[in-house]
């Protein structure tokens, strides 16, 4: 609960008019619904991520916001006004393109100033804004280079500066870091957040990389087949996925199907074929069907040689399953285990390597007890 509170982000007026309202938007390419009756509100000052597998329609949605595609149905409201008739070059929205789309014949300076010249800024104003942008994205000294003479990371910065220079109401970022290597991507994610916070701008990022979405975004919209599966904070998305699809898409998860029965106060008992009876906390929304699945994240599953030492200390450790370790993978910070249960099902568990010395590691063929609390489980309808 405490963590839940600390997770609260500084956000604009949640009650007032959202900055951007996407209202039942449909976009078809031939017979395929790229975006299918999708509705979403985005608040001013928010860093929002659209996350989904490739082909889920997230880029199409972004391109509709930029004006490169027009919705077949539905409306897109910016500050309460429908922007459907507004041409791309007149929208107060800018986009950072996936492969940056820098103008190869123009210098860094001319690339960044391109959008400023179009709104008839004076030379002095342009120079002022240019200097501001160059220092914001740390491009000092490279102003006269051509895009060909820049590294991938530098190009990414020019693209960011160019799209920010006009101070758009909304900045759209289409897989902005996909072309960078892992280390550079991670540091650039932090820089993006820093820039967004400093300018107080609204960012919408499209990505297929869930870690990236979790890192940068205040809220994430998970998309599949043109629909939003869930819109939530990164924590909610991971700990309280709304559907089995989301649970499996975000991170690793163990899923057991079973029959739900009422248990003692605030609990449900699920009898599963693969993992026996699992006691779970009753979800806040009532379950409509009997057949449900239980989702448990691997790091919530603890292993021990004999089971928790004392029931008094682990009053909630009421779910225990015995099995044999069949695989262990040491990954540095964590070690992941695969445990074969007596039913034949495989359970995944990951344990943080809190001690440097190999003291509590398990080895293959060892019998272990896997245990977790009712709170560790999420009950999902099929």
């Amino acid at each position, binding site marked *: 609960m405490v963590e839940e509170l600390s997770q609260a982000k500084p956000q604009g007026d949640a009650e007032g008019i959202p900055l951007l309202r996407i209202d039942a938007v449909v976009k078809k390419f031939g017979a395929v619904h790229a975006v299918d009756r999708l509705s979403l509100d985005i608040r001013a000052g928010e860093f929002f991520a659209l996350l989904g597998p490739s082909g889920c329609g997230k880029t199409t949605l972004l391109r509709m916001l*930029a*004006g*490169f595609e027009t919705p077949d149905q539905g409306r897109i409201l910016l500050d309460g006004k429908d922007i459907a008739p507004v*041409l*791309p*070059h*007149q929208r107060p*929205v*800018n*986009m950072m*393109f*996936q*492969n940056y*789309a*820098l*103008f*190869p*014949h123009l210098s860094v300076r001319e690339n960044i100033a*391109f*959008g400023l010249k*179009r*709104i008839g800024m004076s030379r002095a104003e342009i120079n002022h804004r240019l200097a501001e942008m160059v220092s914001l994205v740390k491009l000092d000294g490279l102003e006269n280079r*051509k895009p*060909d*003479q820049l590294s991938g990371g530098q190009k990414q910065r020019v693209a960011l500066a*160019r*799209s920010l220079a*006009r101070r758009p109401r909304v900045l759209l970022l289409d897989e902005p870091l996909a072309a960078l290597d892992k280390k550079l991507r991670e540091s650039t994610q932090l820089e993006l957040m820093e820039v967004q916070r400093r300018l107080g701008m609204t960012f919408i990022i499209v990505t297929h990389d869930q870690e990236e979405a979790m890192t940068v975004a205040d809220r994430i919209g998970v998309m599949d087949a043109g629909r939003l599966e869930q819109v939530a904070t990164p924590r909610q998305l991971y700990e309280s996925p709304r559907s089995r699809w989301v649970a499996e898409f975000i991170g690793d998860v163990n899923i057991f199907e079973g029959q739900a029965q009422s248990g003692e106060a605030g609990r449900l008992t699920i009898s599963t074929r693969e993992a026996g009876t699992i006691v779970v906390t009753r979800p806040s929304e009532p379950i409509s069907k009997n057949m449900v699945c239980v989702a448990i994240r691997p790091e919530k599953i603890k292993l021990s040689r004999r089971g928790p030492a004392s029931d008094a200390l682990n009053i909630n450790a009421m779910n225990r399953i015995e099995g044999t370790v069949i695989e262990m993978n040491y990954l540095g910070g964590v070690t992941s285990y695969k445990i074969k249960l007596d039913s034949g099902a495989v359970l995944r568990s990951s344990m943080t390597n809190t001690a440097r010395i190999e003291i509590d590691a398990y080895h293959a063929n060892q019998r272990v007890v896997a245990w977790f609390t009712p709170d560790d489980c999420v009950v999902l309808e099929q």
Partner: protein
Amino acid sequence: MSARFTFTRPARLAAIAPYLWMLLFFLVPFGFVLKISLSQTAIAQPPYVPVFDLTQGLSAINGLAELSLDNFRLLVSDNLYVLSYLRSLAVAAVSTSILLVIGYPLAYAMARLPRRWQALAMMLVIIPFWTSFLIRIYAWINILQHDGVLNKFLLVLHLVSAPVVWLSTDSAMYLGIVYSYLPFMILPLYASLAKMDPALLEAAEDLGASRTRAFWLVTFPLSLPGIAAGTLLCFIPIVGEFVIPDLLAGSNSLMIGQTLWLEFFTNKDWPVASAAAVALLLLLVVPLALYDRLQRRRLEQAR
């Protein structure tokens, strides 16, 4: 930055091949032409006084004194040559401009077709090459002549009351040149337009440029190398064009190619014809050298 390549033996041979080709089929013949241009006309077979004859061995050096620049002096002093040079340049400039104005929109349209249609459009541009160039020019004569297809068509539609003179006019010549050289303009333009990332135009629009402005600010400057290539590819051969003006244009003013032909075959004045050819080559080397410098500067910038 200087890069040194060390080639293995077969690779070195391959690298030499183009130079050998140039030596055998361009420099050596050019040497002959240059030699003839420096000699005097004679009633003989071949019709010039042999100078600097290498078969005479070392004594050929003495022949150096016999070389004369008289033919080149004649080129400058007789305005027949100067005029035909100027006419050639003017015809080439006008034709190339028309080609650019027609070729650019065509190449642009081709580059914007869906991928699968682009190959077909390319075929349509290239297909005329399957028929002999000469036959296609004769076909134009057929179309343009007094009782040709064009006049018949116009008469039937009552657009004209009497047949119009098309053939043996400058218009017919320009038509023939533009028709023949269009693929050479379209293909380099298409190549430079097709490889352009469409996201660049979206970026320009996104940053507040209307479609028209985006064209002038992004597409056009990025297609300049294609324009330069297409222009040179058309301009240079048009300057030396002989067949089209000879068959389609009137005979009142000549292009340098026609003058050359006259000197060579009618006047049998090989030395003057050779001098004219050498001068033409030098005249054309200048724009080529400029283009080369432009390219090199671009490459250096890209580094």
